[in-house]
């Protein structure tokens, strides 16, 4: 089966600044997560595969054709950029119907499609409001709407869940999965691992402009699981909890912070630790206020993986 997106030795330089270096990758139908910390080159990669940037070296083929200077391909591509790109003086409905007309839909078809997509993304009630009055979440949903409204085969979503509330996130994640199951190709970029995990098992890890790893998400999960995690717990009996945790094999360090109700632990076995923590909460009858992981982000994982930490 031919890949939907294929890059060969793809590189992009902004003057002396490296955007992407020697990336060769094949993307097949289904949902693919593009993971990397901020500034890793995800957006550059997406702009290259959407033909918005010309490669400095190498080539990009989409649907077997070169994407650069080939706008006809966009009839089957939906792109949701990371930044807002709206006409603030139009209503959401006007904006969407107009975007559909640029995809050669007739006025009637565009109106019908726009109503359908706005309804699906819970924007139907606000469709006649000016975009300038939209909240961040509504803008994000509208951005996704313009990417999917024309029913494309390849959908490219750059940080699509930014600004969405939990309900909106769940709905969009569900929809992205559905599109993948239908046989479409969905490329989703994010720097938040759990977001990608909820959508797909196929990931591409990108770091400092290079493909760091690609394949099944279990691979990165294993790597992450061996990464020493710091977990912060806020509760009413921090010293009792610390005393219990210090005996646990999976705990490497226990330390206190200036906050008298907070204890931080370091572990290499996150899952084992959380199992134990659940039991301790019940045994000690703890009143837990918060459990957070200060370094639970991709940058920390990448730093660990490439040996910077």
């Amino acid at each position, binding site marked *: 089966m031919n890949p939907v997106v294929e890059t060969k030795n793809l590189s992009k330089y902004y003057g002396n600044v490296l955007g992407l270096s020697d990336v060769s990758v094949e993307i097949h139908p289904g949902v693919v997560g593009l993971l990397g910390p901020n500034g890793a080159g995800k957006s550059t990669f997406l702009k290259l595969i959407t033909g918005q940037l010309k490669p400095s070296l190498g080539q990009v083929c989409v649907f077997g054709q070169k994407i650069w200077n080939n706008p006809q391909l966009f*009839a*089957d591509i939906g*792109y949701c950029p990371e930044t*807002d790109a709206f006409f603030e003086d139009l209503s959401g409905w006007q904006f969407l119907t107009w975007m559909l007309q*640029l995809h*050669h839909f007739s006025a009637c078809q565009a109106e019908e499609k726009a109503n359908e997509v706005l309804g699906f993304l819970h924007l139907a009630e606000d469709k006649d409001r000016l975009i300038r009055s939209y909240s961040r979440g509504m803008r994000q949903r509208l951005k996704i709407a313009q990417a999917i409204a024309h029913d494309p085969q390849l959908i490219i979503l750059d940080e699509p869940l930014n600004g969405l509330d939990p309900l909106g996130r769940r709905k969009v994640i569900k929809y992205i999965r559905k599109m993948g199951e239908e046989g479409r190709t969905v490329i989703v970029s994010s720097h938040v691992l759990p977001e990608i995990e909820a959508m797909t098992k196929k990931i591409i890890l990108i770091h400092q402009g290079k493909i760091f790893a690609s394949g099944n998400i279990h691979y990165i999960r294993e790597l992450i699981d061996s990464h020493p995690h710091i977990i912060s717990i806020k509760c009413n009996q921090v010293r009792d909890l610390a005393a219990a945790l210090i005996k646990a094999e999976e705990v490497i360090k226990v330390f206190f912070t200036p906050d008298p109700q907070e204890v931080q632990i370091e572990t290499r076995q996150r899952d084992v630790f959380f199992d134990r923590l659940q039991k301790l909460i019940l045994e000690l009858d703890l009143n837990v206020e918060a459990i957070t992981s200060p370094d639970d982000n991709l940058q920390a994982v990448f730093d660990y993986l490439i040996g910077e930490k």
Partner: protein
Amino acid sequence: MSIRKKGYSHWEGQLKESAFVAWFPLTRLGIKLAFQKRFFKLFFFSAFLPALIFLAGIYVSERMEDFRFMIQGQPSFLQITPNYFKAYFTNSFFLFLLVLMMIFVGSGLIADDLKFKALQLYFARPLRKVDYLLGKMATLGFFLLLLSLIPGWIFVLFKLVFAGNFAFLRSYPWLPLAVVAYSLILTLFFAIYTLTLSALSSNSRHVALMIFGIYLASDIIFGIFYQNFHHPYLVLLSLKLNLQQVGAALFGEKLFYPVPWGWSLLLLIMLMGLGLAILNRRIRSVEVVK
């Protein structure tokens, strides 16, 4: 066959190529947004006043007997010759109206796209750079031709209707073509001029100032230099005078200044070429960080 394979196989066929005019939705939206602007409707209808006055002049010229109580003899300004058309098309007020129209309609055409980072959305659709520019130019062309070509042809038509014969057309068979040619020159020049300036800033107010300022400044600079040096070739410094020179030549009338009109036309073409080069450079889907 599973749903997955079915969905995927879609793209392996021929990608559909539509005969639809890709730029037309851009033009339609541009026109629609122009009419949503405050005071634009008032300005738009007022802009037709000069044309109505000239049309009334054609009517009066053919019904002089009815207006004897007001007008004695046959005043030269009521003689419908190519000079009458020149008087309409090259008068400073008419050209100023076109500049104002460009400020209303054109100042935000590209500037707002830059401001709202909308170019990345345009170029993620089956739209080429040339389609984008054509769509924007057609928006301006719509208004410019409404004020130039349409009145010009209406003048010719009403002259024939009021006269009740084709003598006027037999005398000046080239005049309708001159109207078309000059209207196209005006449209192309003002459209490219406006779009170029609109592409230079993401603030439509700054663009409006530039459209007005450069047009006016070129005329003022000409005035200052001409007063000191009295050299006719200084006419090339003024955008307005270059347009007037070309207009006078196309209507077969005396030039405003004794300078070959080809120089003015060449200068306008060079300015349009420069404008297109700037547009080609400025219109790109993403900002490239250097």
